[in-house]
């Protein structure tokens, strides 16, 4: 089959590799019909995530048709499903309390040591996201092996086309959980850093949850325009002093909740970035956390801090004082996707959520490398790229 494989920093290629097989009884094999490139795939593309090996197949946002099922899978051949990027067994303590992204059984035993020493506990398994999270092949391919196929994949009714439901795999639940983690109350003013896909969906979710005002912060004009169309007020951080503006726009109190939908890839948000960039080049080092630092200063006393943006290492000069003195509440984590797929599918089906506005490009799988390059370099206009393995190359 054909698959998008990683070979080093800014080096991804479509190659021919072996088709996957059923290995465990609960597995299924999908024929991939749509798969997206994610902002967090750019961390892999930029080479800032450790534990990558040449030839790894990327892609954690995908859907497709079951073409083979293991004897304990509950899927049937021919069913169309969207697959959560978090691989979860459904039976461990964390899965039982719906903290699916902390599943204890999905990262192979012999691959748990690196993340355990980094974080104190091993990461769970994720599709296409380095050997830190299990080394599972991703879905930017013609076929993919899906473990625990009785727990993760959600069956999609025939009348809903791929483009409407694909984002259930990651960014829609991630934006939704980011807003949920901000525990939004009806009077709240919420500031969201980053108008990438997750930021935009967090804005959409915060508005759906009844926030009085949502303020979006970015510098790409088109992305700010999308945020405005969703109902947000916007700040261009290149033109405006963000902290001062947020104080004024929240009546001098400070915003009630902040959402960092940028993570360690913050660029241009502050001068101390440069220090962090240098350190990051040395290895798993300092995350560039200028957005988070800014958010902790902007949020009001007793405010809520939600971090869907990805961080992997450590941060220098973290404002611990602001965290404690202001009595902040911080919630974060990889998304517990399986908890959200059904309720969000219902919202898509009844028309109350439409996420197709985000899609800017649809490419055949053969043009995946071009998709990565443009998604990275033309962030303003390439808002979301979907790869279609079934689409003929131009």
């Amino acid at each position: 089959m054909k698959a998008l494989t990683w070979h080093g920093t800014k080096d991804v290629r479509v190659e021919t590799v072996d088709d996957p097989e059923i290995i465990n009884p609960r597995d299924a094999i999908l024929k991939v019909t749509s798969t997206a490139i994610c902002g967090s795939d750019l961390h892999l593309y930029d080479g800032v995530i450790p534990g990558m090996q040449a030839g790894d197949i990327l892609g954690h946002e995908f859907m497709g048709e079951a073409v083979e099922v293991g004897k304990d899978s509950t899927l049937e051949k021919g069913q169309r499903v969207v697959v959560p990027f978090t691989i979860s067994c459904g039976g461990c303590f964390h899965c039982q309390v719906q903290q699916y992204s902390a599943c204890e059984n999905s990262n192979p035993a012999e691959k748990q040591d690196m993340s355990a020493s980094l974080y104190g506990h091993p990461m769970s398994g994720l599709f296409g996201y380095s050997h830190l999270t299990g080394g599972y092949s991703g879905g930017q391919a013609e076929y993919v092996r899906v473990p625990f196929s009785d727990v993760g994949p959600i069956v999609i009714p025939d009348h809903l086309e791929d483009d409407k439901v694909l984002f259930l795999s990651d960014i829609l639940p991630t934006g939704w959980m980011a807003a949920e983690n901000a525990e939004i109350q009806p009077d709240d003013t919420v500031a969201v850093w980053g108008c990438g896909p997750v930021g935009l969906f967090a804005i959409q979710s915060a508005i759906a949850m009844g926030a009085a005002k949502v303020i979006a912060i970015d510098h790409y004009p088109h992305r700010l325009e999308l945020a405005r169309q969703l109902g947000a007020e916007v700040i261009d951080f290149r033109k405006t002093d963000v902290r001062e503006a947020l104080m004024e726009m929240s009546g001098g109190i400070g915003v009630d909740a902040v959402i960092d939908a940028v993570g360690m890839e913050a660029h241009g948000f502050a001068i101390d970035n440069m220090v962090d960039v240098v350190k990051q080049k040395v290895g798993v080092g300092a995350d560039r956390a200028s957005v988070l630092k800014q958010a902790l200063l902007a949020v009001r006393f007793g405010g809520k801090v939600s971090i869907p943006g990805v961080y992997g290492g450590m941060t220098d000069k973290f404002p611990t004082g602001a965290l404690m003195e202001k009595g902040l509440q911080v919630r974060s984590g990889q998304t517990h996707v399986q908890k959200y797929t059904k309720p969000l599918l219902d919202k898509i089906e009844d028309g109350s959520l439409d996420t197709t506005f985000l899609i800017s490009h649809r490419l055949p799988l053969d043009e995946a490398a071009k998709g990565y390059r443009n998604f990275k370099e033309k962030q303003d206009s390439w808002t979301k790229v979907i790869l279609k393995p079934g689409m003929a190359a131009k």
Partner: protein
Amino acid sequence: MNQHRSSTVGIAVGLGLTAGGVLLASLARRHKGGRDSAPGYTARRIPGKFDVTGKTVTIRKPRAELFAYWRDFANLPAIMENLEHVEVMDNQTGHSAWSIKAPAGNTVRIETKIAREVADELIAWRSVEGSEIATEGRVMFSDAPGDRGTQVTLIIAYQPPAGAVGKAVAKLFIREPAVQARHDLKRFKMLMETGEIATSANRKDETRAAQQEKKS
């Protein structure tokens, strides 16, 4: 408060491993004197010629089910690194021969017997005299809080073997016993909680089982 732990003391009955037996039993319980409530094997320095490692996992299954799986030693190659085959010669005494993969196609055979057994709570085993590696292990099962299942603790003590074969085996089998015990317990947990052992392999010939098969 030490009642349960101290019931595991006193398994050391003869056969050349007395020192290890005493050590293992004492390490399984908590420190005396109330200075510290951590298990003894987590101490920063463990004196003596036996190397000891201990690990605990919580498994969402009843004690009896986990005990029964482990008590059938023939099951263990499915979860244990480098353990090729276990032949149970006498189920009553637990007299078993463990075939462990060694470099250059060699296999090391260790014969063990059950030293102590408490149904649904504890299995302790020990190598018989003349084994290539002197080793002793115990696995303990206790109820986890609420409905979290069972806490399973595996403790293994072994005497680093002498001689060329011993050294080679040591490299493979016991180079990083703590890491290995952790992996073994994680696989046990996976198998019990999910019915399978997680792998990111895409092809049957890339799995751990297939790789082991290939090497033999």
